[in-house]
């Protein structure tokens, strides 16, 4: 194609081809950032990682600790992880998202004690356009909640229990 692109379609095709080259050149692993940390989470480093030229749609997901679960007032949550396996599983999910949706993705999960209102998980996804970015982000959080070996213990007034499975989803 000679000269400057003149229509939306031309721009779209060009940016898509450029993106494909980008992912191919940098490799799937360079489109992925994973972190499991006891420190408070922040979206800024995740956004800084995924925002690149040609990625026009950026979607983020944040999961916060709720004050009530099943009618019980939550005091705090405590997260425990099989950390090396959890990192591997999160990386596998992110790499699958990159392959399926041509995106960049950063995923962070906090462990340890979290107070009500604090973020336990953050995900940022950047794609060429918004639709695949939403889909990839949804896939990442849903699959994390199914497969990544992390558990939460819920503490309320007068008791505490380890949550196993998606009963609080």
């Amino acid at each position, binding site marked *: 194609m000679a000269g400057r692109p003149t229509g939306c379609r031309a721009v779209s095709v060009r940016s898509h081809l450029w993106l494909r080259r980008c992912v191919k050149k940098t490799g799937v692993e360079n489109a992925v950032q994973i972190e499991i940390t006891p420190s408070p989470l922040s979206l800024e480093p995740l956004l800084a990682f995924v925002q690149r030229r040609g990625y026009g749609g950026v979607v983020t997901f944040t*999961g916060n600790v709720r004050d009530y679960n099943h009618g019980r007032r939550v005091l705090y949550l405590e*997260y*425990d*992880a*099989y950390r*090396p*396996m*959890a990192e*591997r599983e999160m990386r596998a999910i992110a790499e699958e998202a990159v392959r399926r949706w041509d995106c960049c993705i950063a995923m962070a*999960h906090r462990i340890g004690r979290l107070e009500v209102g604090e973020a*336990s*998980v953050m995900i940022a996804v950047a794609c060429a356009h918004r639709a695949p970015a939403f889909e990839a982000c949804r896939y990442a*959080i849903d699959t*994390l*909640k*199914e*497969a*990544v*070996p*992390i*558990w*939460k*213990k819920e503490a309320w007034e007068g008791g505490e229990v*380890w*949550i*196993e*499975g*998606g009963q*609080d989803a």
Partner: protein
Amino acid sequence: MRVRVELFGRAAEQAGVRTVELDLPANATSATAAEALAERYPRLEWLRRGSRPARNQEYARWEDPLAEGDEVSFIPPVSGG
């Protein structure tokens, strides 16, 4: 053979430890490891029915054979996020 079992969450609390070394027969599987673990820590008997085994940080099957030095774990339904 010797394997190392990693424990988390409820199982770690019940056992009071996060790592257990097990000495198993040569033909041991993930199932054998879970049974040996429950013998030493009876409160962990539920893991054999209520978890998925993992071997060297990857999901495995109960009948998969183990090898000397393996890192073994039992993954109850997860609740991250």
